[in-house]
């Protein structure tokens, strides 16, 4: 029956049954009432005076909910309670419930998000990223670009010494601050040739164990790496800072376009969290933390829609800006070490050192690098650490195991291109060089600061020589033997190095194959040529046979496909199939 509501005449909301006792008391006395505050997550009871204002009420509950009073929004019976109102005004009596929304700076904690829900929505849109990532070619490249940038940065991860990493971060900061330096570095032909060799890049990248883990988890990455087109494009882009900025802008555009596709945002986020974030994290470890760490963590807490509403995509940091420099410094240090290592044994080596040192110097001519070099020479321990770093070791190992690769790397530099005979000479000696590099004596020689200084002096001296006394450069003699003698070991290293300065000051006193070879090196410096790859047919012999066995009988087409895909059989097959009608 309707008696309940009718008992007090006209039905008044505040005379609900629960409030009956409360309202019977004299309203003038401040009675303590118990009000329940409910958030989507939790529920708490508060005892407050009946006539308190909303503001006072908020103060009481702010402590419990660990928020500022201005972050609290109270709702009762469908109305927002303003601070200057009183509880009575809204009819809040004993035993009633008020809803609470807590606004944190970015997002309300009162609305808790379930990460499992996010995972659910991600799973449903999992099919879309597959289709999204392939047709959107603008994306595959930027992500390749980004990942390459991250990857290139990974190469510096092997340097475990804290000293060196501090150094590195300083250097990187300097680099970040000065794009001109970047440009200079990029323009250095050695760096360019290094970067333009996709095989080399791939090897370097694969050598990193973290990359390997990533690849296991995301086979898409290995496809990326194995596609030389993408690699080449990426490298080109990395070389050209203006183009880089373009690409970044395009990438941002493409990203925001993706957002508007249904399910696209989730696809993006998945791509980000699966691929880019670990890479960024890995690459940025040394750079002082992932700038997107906060965004990422907020995504993981399920609040990922925040970025999609506000265009909070600052242009992604330039992850590949410092790494190529680091890489180049690592590389040039490699060549330096190669040079010094070979300096231990023979003339070839010394000449090599010179040439390498030349490049080293050209890169280091910028002030930032100068200081780096200074620090390196001052701190022999650094060099030692650097050389003994796992990355360097693995690179050297892979080089020694793959003489072809080492040969390519060495020969790609314009150093040797002018003189094919030189190349021939170098090739057999490379394994020997690499052996030496692993020789701990070599390392100790490298760590000798005087040795480094001497090398610099050699380089300077030879430059002077080349400009002022070109006539002194003798013809190349094949008897530049001694290169094979690896038995010299450590003791001869410093000796040679210390002998070197005296050598530079008295060029005329040179005689013998050593100095001749050095001159030859200098001469070769002037040349610039495209490197010669080993015959692709030879390289892909095995793959060709496999393709033949599979039924692809067109040898030329197979070869083309293999060349285009860099030896990746699967990709080559796709190419072959794609070119056939239907």
């Amino acid at each position, binding site marked *: 029956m309707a008696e309940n509501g009718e008992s007090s005449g006209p039905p008044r*909301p505040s005379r609900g049954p629960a409030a009956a006792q409360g309202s019977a008391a004299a309203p003038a006395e401040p009675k303590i009432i118990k009000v329940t505050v*409910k958030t989507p997550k939790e529920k708490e009871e508060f005892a407050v005076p009946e006539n308190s204002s909303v503001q006072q009420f908020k103060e009481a509950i702010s402590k419990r909910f660990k928020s500022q009073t201005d972050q609290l929004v109270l*709702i009762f019976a469908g*109305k927002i309670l303003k601070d200057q109102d009183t509880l009575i005004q809204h009819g809040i009596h004993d035993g009633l419930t*008020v809803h609470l929304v807590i606004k944190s700076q970015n997002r309300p904690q009162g609305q808790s998000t379930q990460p499992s829900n996010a995972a659910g929505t991600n799973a449903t849109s999992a099919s879309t990223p597959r289709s999204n990532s392939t047709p959107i070619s603008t994306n595959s490249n930027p992500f390749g670009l980004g990942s390459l940038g991250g990857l290139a940065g990974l190469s510096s991860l092997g340097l475990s010494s804290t000293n060196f990493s501090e150094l590195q971060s300083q250097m990187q900061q300097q680099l970040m601050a000065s794009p001109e330096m970047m440009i200079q570095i990029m323009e250095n032909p050695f760096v360019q040739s290094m970067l333009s060799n996709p095989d080399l890049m791939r090897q370097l990248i694969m050598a990193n164990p973290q990359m390997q883990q990533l690849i296991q988890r995301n086979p898409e990455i290995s496809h990326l790496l194995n596609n030389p087109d993408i690699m080449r494009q990426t490298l080109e882009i990395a070389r050209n800072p203006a183009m880089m900025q373009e690409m970044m802008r395009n990438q941002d555009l493409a990203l925001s376009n993706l957002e508007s596709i249904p399910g696209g945002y989730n696809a993006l986020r998945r791509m980000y969290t699966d691929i880019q974030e670990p890479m960024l994290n890995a690459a940025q470890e040394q750079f002082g933390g992932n700038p997107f760490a906060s965004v990422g963590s907020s995504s993981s807490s399920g*609040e990922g829609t925040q970025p999609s509403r506000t265009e909070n995509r600052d242009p992604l940091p330039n992850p590949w800006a410092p790494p190529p420099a680091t890489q180049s410094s690592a590389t040039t240090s490699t060549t330096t070490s190669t040079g010094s290592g070979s300096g231990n044994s023979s003339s070839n080596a010394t000449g090599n050192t010179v040439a390498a040192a030349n490049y080293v110097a050209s890169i280091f001519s910028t002030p930032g690098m100068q200081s780096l070099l200074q620090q390196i020479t001052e701190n022999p321990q650094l060099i030692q650490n650097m050389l003994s770093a796992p990355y360097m070791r693995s690179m050297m190992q892979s080089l020694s195991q793959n003489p072809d690769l080492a040969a390519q790397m060495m020969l790609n530099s314009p150093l040797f291109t002018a003189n094919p005979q030189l190349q021939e000479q170098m090739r057999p000696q490379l394994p020997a060089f690499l052996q030496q590099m692993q020789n701990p004596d070599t390392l100790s020689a490298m760590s000798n600061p005087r040795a480094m200084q001497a090398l610099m002096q050699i380089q300077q001296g030879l430059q002077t020589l080349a400009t002022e006394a070109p006539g002194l450069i003798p013809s190349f003699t094949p008897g530049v033997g001694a290169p094979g003698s690896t038995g010299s070991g450590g003791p001869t290293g410093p000796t040679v190095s210390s002998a070197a300065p005296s050598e530079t000051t008295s060029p005329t006193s040179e005689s013998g194959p050593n100095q001749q070879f050095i001159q030859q090196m200098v001469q070769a410096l002037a040349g610039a040529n495209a490197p010669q790859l080993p015959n692709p047919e030879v390289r892909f012999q095995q793959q060709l046979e496999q393709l033949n066995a599979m039924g692809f009988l067109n040898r030329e087409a197979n070869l083309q496909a293999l060349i285009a895909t860099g030896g990746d059989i699967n990709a080559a097959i796709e190419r072959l199939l794609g070119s056939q009608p239907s």
Partner: protein
Amino acid sequence: MAATTGSGVKVPGNFRLLEELEGGQKGIGDGTVSWGLEDDEDMTLTKWTGMIIGPPRTIYENRIYSLKIECGPKYPEAPPFVRFVTKINMNGVNSSNGVVDPRAISVLAKWQNSYSIKVVLQELRRLMMSKENMKLPQPPEGQCYSN
């Protein structure tokens, strides 16, 4: 106004509304919607206000939407009129005055007398989470329709 009609099969409108009022004040439900009388002195129990807290992981997140609900004399046999006060961009809501189109919202279109204001609010909230709505660009927070 005495609204008792005696016999009991049909629950009188005001009684239902009273129950709903009590429910709104006691905060029944999960705390994501709230409703109550617009004017506490309203004897007719016709004008109500409602509040929906924007569901998380949608574009409505972190926003509080205010609504006006009018329960006519035929309530609960007839659905109430629902209107957004806070500006919102959502399917089924008129973008110029915030009126919720009863034909577009399923609970209003297929109204049953067991439904209540709470059900309407919760359904609207659920619709905010639907794929078609959850990403619609929204007007700046805090704007209200002029009428």
